[in-house]
């Protein structure tokens, strides 16, 4: 499985480098603009957050592209010629966005740290903004994979699995809606951590559900 995962990362490295390069370009432009407008620009923590967001968004967008290309190239067919089980194939599928997310988090952390070193201030707020946006994107990617498996289950007439997939999706959405509403009404020191934890719980739960549904597939031709 790790060999397959490494190969996918090596194959998609040009997209990742391109995406990160583009994001870095945007970060530089934004920084120049913020520097030019000086005190008329956004507060320091918001500026750092905006820069971090671009860096965390870039690999996640590359993740969407990777998903589409892997599916177009029918990679499953190649991997099922080897000794990989469907569970391991599902592992490759869900771990790719995890790695991309980690790269985004690392890049954003570097920019925010550099900003903190230059300004001498580390605003916790900027970390939360970046973490929340990144978490939403990561969770969205995982939900996308779950929906893909629910659709595949429906196509393969595994109606119980399809229903379970769609039900998981609805429950995840309701959970996030309830959590967000609660945080908005009961603002306090635990608001941001609650939102991060909510995203993480939904992402992990959908990851597990996706792997379970993929393992139960009856058709690996697409």
């Amino acid at each position, binding site marked *: 499985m790790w*060999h397959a995962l490494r190969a996918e990362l090596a194959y998609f490295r040009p997209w990742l480098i391109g995406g990160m390069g583009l994001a870095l370009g945007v970060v530089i432009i934004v920084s120049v603009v913020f520097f030019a407008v000086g005190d008329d620009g956004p507060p320091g923590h918001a500026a750092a957050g905006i820069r971090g967001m671009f860096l965390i968004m870039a690999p996640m967008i590359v993740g969407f592209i990777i998903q589409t290309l892997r599916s177009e190239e029918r990679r499953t*067919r*190649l991997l*099922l*010629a*080897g*000794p990989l*089980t469907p569970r391991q194939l599902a592992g490759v599928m869900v771990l790719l966005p995890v790695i991309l997310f980690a790269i985004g988090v690392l890049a954003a952390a570097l920019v925010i740290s550099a900003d903190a070193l230059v300004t001498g201030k580390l605003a916790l707020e900027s970390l939360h903004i970046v973490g929340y946006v990144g978490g939403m994107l990561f969770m969205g990617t995982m939900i996308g994979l779950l929906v893909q498996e629910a659709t595949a289950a429906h196509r393969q007439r595994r109606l119980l699995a399809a229903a379970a997939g769609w039900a998981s999706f609805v429950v995840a959405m309701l959970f996030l809606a309830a959590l967000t509403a609660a945080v908005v009404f009961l603002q306090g020191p635990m608001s941001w951590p609650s939102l991060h934890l909510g995203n993480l719980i939904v992402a992990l739960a959908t990851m597990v559900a996706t792997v379970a549904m993929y393992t139960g597939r009856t*058709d*690996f031709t697409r």
Partner: protein
Amino acid sequence: MNDHRPEATAAARLSGLTKRFPGFQLGPIDLALEPGTVLALVGPNGAGKTTTLNCMAGLIVPDEGGTEVYGAPVHPSRTEYRRDVGYVGEESGFFQRWTAGRNLDYLAKLLPGWSHDRASRLADRFGLPLGKAVNKLSRGNRTKLALVAALAHGPRLLLLDEPTAGLDPVVRSEVLDVFWEITEDGEHAVLYSTHVLSDINRLADELAFLRDGQIVLRTGRDELSESWRRVSFRLPEENVELPGVVEHRRVRAEHQVITQDAPATLQQLTVLGAEAVEVSRMSVDEIAVQILKEGHHVARAAS
């Protein structure tokens, strides 16, 4: 048609294989493929050839029944059988922007039993441009790459899903040459699906005709060309009952029939005192068309 053979060492064995799709059912299919045999699975588009091969490769899980490869059950969750299977389909899942050589290097690490020596010998023999990206390869070269990838780990069963479909005549002939070389040694059991009937003559020892998800006839190629004949004769009677006849036309006093049991038909014609009897051979292509056209009728007559 069911084919029950007692050998436990069949290269592939399909037992009651059934897969249902909306508006289409494949099977139940019972089929055994002996080691060293080249079996052509012949049928029109939509007959179920690709689904059968996908079930045998473990890419599709059947609704009922199952498949074994050299005694190992085939299922996506099992891996034992994969060592023995080489699969060449229209889509092979290669990394399109990597070169053919890099794809083979990747597979070398993925597939147990991979032989670099075998892979490079095959690539040389096929004239495969290893330095070219897969998405820049011609269709014929992509088929050759799929074939190298399918053979380099030393499988004993080769599944070929319409490998010559869409190829121009020159490349098709080149690819058929390659298949011919591979199958010539008798080491590989090959299941070859095709609707290009002219391929049959060159490669197959045996033929299984698939129509509407059912195997309507399985027979040896030589047996087929020996038993099928086009016969014309004169008899005053308008309706003549003849054994083995699958098609009967009457033009004035002359009858023209196609028979799948020439000796029995000719014997009956002698008994009936038919005159001006003329017998002509049919090509395997012509016979295949006849079988696929007549379908279950032929199968009933044969059973």
